[in-house]
């Protein structure tokens, strides 16, 4: 099936990789059958464990790894091109093939990266910059020991910030310690998400800021406030907090007007819902300073390809000379200034881009 599937040319390197992966899988299964034929009872439990592992891989192959190939369509080409460009623009990922499929915005970073975007959003330019955030997860994984060390430093600083000035030796103190541990644990995933937001901004500039704020703005109360029970062990920080941290970073990059505009939009919605900002100890000014410092260090560690000033200019995109980042920024410029013209512009630009 994988060999015979009709796929866009951009997906061919991924098919080769999956074919190789399948061959390795077959070799391992053959070895397992050979071991079984040896008739040695003492190794039966090991063979059983290998069989369980093979079953898991077969399930993942069917439910995840083969999907980009078996469900491929021509409309995947836009995201595949952007992922391919993104991978080639960084030495850590230059040899990784692009693979993409429908799903909630996310990435599977292991063993080979597969990106997901919702089926409507993936058809146009506006939300493609979200892939830059997901790329951050891949960069993290490829520099995991160094990145984990930095996140560990952040977690220890957060634990220090949360330490009460005096300690008692009673039940109340035990509960405080448990709560502190929960917050520190939660920050492992939060730190990576905030880092990935910073990566998205670094690569995509204004296009990422706009895609991020618009895509995440469900206008739900949960985007602004979450109870301690919901925050406990959550995989992402409260969206409003992420928007504020990202806007602050954008301001430092000289995108002050846009950052302020986005902050105003979110503040208006928060006020309309009567939401009071409260992170229940998971975030405060002191933690904010540490987060900023560590995320800066994480960016230095992975050294992403930063957007360029000429990629933000208000001029028409040229397929011959301009970058993908310019194209994505241009899409948002047209969308925000001439919404009625945008569908026509996008159609023409897509044809030029994929030609």
């Amino acid at each position, binding site marked *: 099936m994988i060999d015979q599937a009709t796929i866009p040319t951009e997906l061919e390197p991924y098919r080769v990789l999956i074919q190789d992966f399948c061959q390795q899988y077959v070799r391992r299964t053959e070895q397992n059958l050979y071991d079984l034929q*040896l008739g040695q009872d003492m190794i039966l439990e090991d063979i059983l464990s*290998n069989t369980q592992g093979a079953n*898991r891989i077969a399930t993942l192959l069917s*439910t995840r790894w083969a999907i980009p190939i078996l469900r491929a369509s021509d409309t995947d080409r836009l995201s595949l091109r952007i992922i391919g460009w993104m991978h080639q623009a960084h030495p850590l990922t230059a040899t990784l093939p692009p693979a993409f499929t429908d799903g909630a915005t*996310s990435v599977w970073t292991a063993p080979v990266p597969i990106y997901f975007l919702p089926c409507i959003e993936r058809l146009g330019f506006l939300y493609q910059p979200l892939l830059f955030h997901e790329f951050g997860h891949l960069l993290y994984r490829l520099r995991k020991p160094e990145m*984990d060390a930095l996140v*560990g430093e952040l977690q220890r600083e957060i*634990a220090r910030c949360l330490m009460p000035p005096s300690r008692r030796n009673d039940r109340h103190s035990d509960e405080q*310690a448990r709560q502190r541990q929960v917050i520190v644990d939660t920050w*492992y995933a939060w730190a990576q998400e905030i880092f990935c937001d910073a990566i998205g901004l670094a690569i995509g500039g204004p296009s990422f800021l706009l895609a991020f704020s618009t895509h995440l703005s469900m206008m739900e109360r949960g985007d602004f406030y979450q109870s301690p029970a919901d925050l406990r062990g959550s995989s992402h920080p409260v969206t409003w907090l992420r928007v504020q941290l990202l806007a602050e970073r954008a301001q430092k990059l000289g995108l002050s007007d846009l950052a302020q505009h986005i902050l105003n939009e979110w503040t208006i919605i928060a006020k309309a819902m009567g939401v009071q900002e409260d992170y229940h100890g998971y975030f405060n000014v002191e933690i904010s300073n540490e987060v900023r410092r560590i995320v800066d260090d994480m960016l230095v560690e992975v050294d992403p390809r930063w957007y360029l000033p000429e990629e933000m200019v208000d001029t028409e995109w040229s397929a011959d000379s301009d970058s993908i980042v310019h194209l994505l920024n241009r899409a948002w410029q047209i969308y925000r200034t001439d919404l009625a013209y945008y569908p026509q512009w996008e159609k023409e630009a897509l044809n030029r881009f994929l030609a």
Partner: protein
Amino acid sequence: MSNNWLAAESFERAHSIISALNTLSIHAKMVLANIDDTARSSEAVKARAVLSAFLESFGAIVKEAERTREGMVTGADPRLSQLARTFVAKRRQWPQHSRLYDITLSEVDALLESDNPDNLRQLIAYLQELRVLLEQNVHADIVGLLGEI
């Protein structure tokens, strides 16, 4: 935006370690039974490297978890942190019946490099218990990735 990355990375790690552990376990049993298993020797060398690397990083996390009463772990993903805390809690149980919880990293390294029959027997028992611990963890990764029907 979902957190697929956490479950996928945790699954990949567990799968590669369990796979390495099985290779070593089979190889050790064959050597102990005087059955020619040279065809697996190069795989066993690679498996040894995978397991040693994991035990070194896991050992550091366990050490950190043991330093505080609440088992504070930093710089490790939630699944690995949880595994380390489970390990520490079991190690603190008394009486201790399992070799898994009182053997040191350097002792495991020595077992991995040894062909001595007594050491091979200890290694096989150790690998068996480590596999049980890891397999209990991998189920949650699979559910995290694929959900349940």
